[in-house]
């Protein structure tokens, strides 16, 4: 029997997910032994044409990481969908939109404006905006479209499985590969990580008081963090209660709060709203003034609650261009 053919591709991402594959360390030899890597631009010299030349559904499994920001990424995703039997969204960006998804707090216009007009280091009179098509000295130049809104993989295509994490841990990846190789596949659309909140596997869960209440919110740089005690009980906001487990509480074990990269469990529709709800519930004030004062310290609600999940959230992006008030509507 021939070895299963595997492809890796990256879209809008930092490269950390590619690193996670290399982090398999000596286990990668077993993987390479078991599969045939047919496309992996970051490590091996294959080109888009090589994929385009393959017959449809030739690739057994395509691992795609990164969010969708550019037309080029969209094109590659559609190409890989056509050529692959199974698509795996690899990492937070493909799964939820990830850090690039926070770009949805702006739009193309405001990003271009900042980058090509307002940045102080720009030369004057050199404020050129990139064009998708341009002709110069008889050559036609083409740049991919820059989308207004960052999307996640499922916005474009059907995804078979999700490997969560920023990046997914080598353990999860290895387990996923073994599951696929054995053919013991869970239902389509499954997130390949336990469907419980992170607190469930967090060592500090024991230290959580029976009634968790806080009077103050602290940022990690403001305090010396007790390495044993539940972070929420210390007044440090932790996304653990609203985040899927499976990472082994890596950040918390490193004495840092969870930031939510595994996304929500299957029972939750909107991770940020759930985290917000949880935080509001444990604040020990009932008068408006104290509540306001405490939440004023919470400087970036979207960046905290939706650090990895803005494109999959219910609101998806910041709303721009609300209607100017129309005279006829006033009456």
């Amino acid at each position, binding site marked *: 029997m021939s070895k299963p053919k595997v492809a890796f591709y990256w879209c809008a991402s930092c490269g950390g997910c590619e690193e996670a594959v290399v982090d398999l360390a000596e286990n990668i030899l077993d993987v390479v032994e078991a599969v045939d890597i047919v496309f992996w631009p970051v490590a091996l010299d294959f080109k888009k044409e090589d994929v385009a030349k393959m017959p449809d559904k030739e690739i057994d499994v395509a691992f795609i990481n990164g969010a969708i920001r550019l037309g080029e990424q969209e094109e590659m995703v559609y190409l890989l969908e056509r050529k692959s039997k199974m698509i795996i969204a690899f990492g937070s960006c493909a799964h939820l939109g990830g850090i690039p998804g926070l770009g949805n707090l702006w739009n193309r216009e405001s990003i271009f404006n900042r980058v090509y007009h307002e940045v102080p280091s720009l030369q004057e009179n050199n404020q050129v905006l990139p064009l998708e098509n341009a002709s110069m000295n008889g050559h036609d130049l083409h740049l991919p479209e820059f989308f207004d809104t960052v999307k996640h993989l499922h916005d474009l295509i059907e995804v078979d499985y999700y490997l969560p994490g920023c990046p997914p841990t080598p353990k999860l990846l290895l387990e996923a590969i073994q599951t696929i190789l054995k053919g013991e596949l869970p239902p389509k659309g499954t997130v390949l990580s336990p469907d419980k909140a992170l607190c469930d596997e967090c060592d500090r869960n024991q230290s959580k008081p029976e009634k968790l209440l806080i009077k103050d919110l602290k940022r990690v740089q403001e305090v010396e963090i007790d390495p044993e005690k539940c972070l929420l009980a210390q007044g440090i906001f932790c996304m653990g209660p609203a985040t899927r487990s499976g990472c082994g509480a890596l950040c918390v074990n490193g004495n840092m709060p969870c930031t939510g990269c595994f996304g929500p469990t299957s029972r939750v529709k*909107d991770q940020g709203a759930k985290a917000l709800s949880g935080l509001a519930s444990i604040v020990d004030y009932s008068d408006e003034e104290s509540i306001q004062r405490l939440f004023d310290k919470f400087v970036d609600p979207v960046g905290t609650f939706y650090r990895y999940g803005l494109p999959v959230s219910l609101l998806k992006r910041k*709303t721009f261009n609300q209607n100017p*008030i129309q005279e006829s509507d006033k009456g």
Partner: protein
Amino acid sequence: MYEAKVVAFFCTWCTYTAADLAGTARMSYAPNVRIVRIMCSGRVDPQFILDAFHRGADGVLIGGCHPGDCHYQDGNYKTLRRFHLLQRLLEQMGIEKKRLRLEWISASEGDKVQRVINEMVEDLRQLGPLKISASPVAEEVEGETEAVAAPAL
């Protein structure tokens, strides 16, 4: 003309009873509100509110018991805290603060139900429709508003 759509979550003990009272007293108020009866304002998961906006609501109104009056002791305080944090979040997401309103309305305040709903609908009329790009009904909103106005009469 644009007619605002408001989803209202009213607690069954106070505000919903007040809305009932407004009805039996034949007080008229703007017909733009769809009332969802819940056991306690503390049951309003922030997901419900975002989902309402996501599905085309122009405003969300939450009605609960006055502070100290909650049937379940402190449900309305939870709502108050969620409301303030959610307001900050919505502001960052480009959604005007007036689109989410929290009011304490006791069972006897039918007139307050009338006043609050009328005020809110007027505020939303001034703001215009909420356009959320992720909304599955974004394209239909225009056509649908017509249908909304009709059965209200």
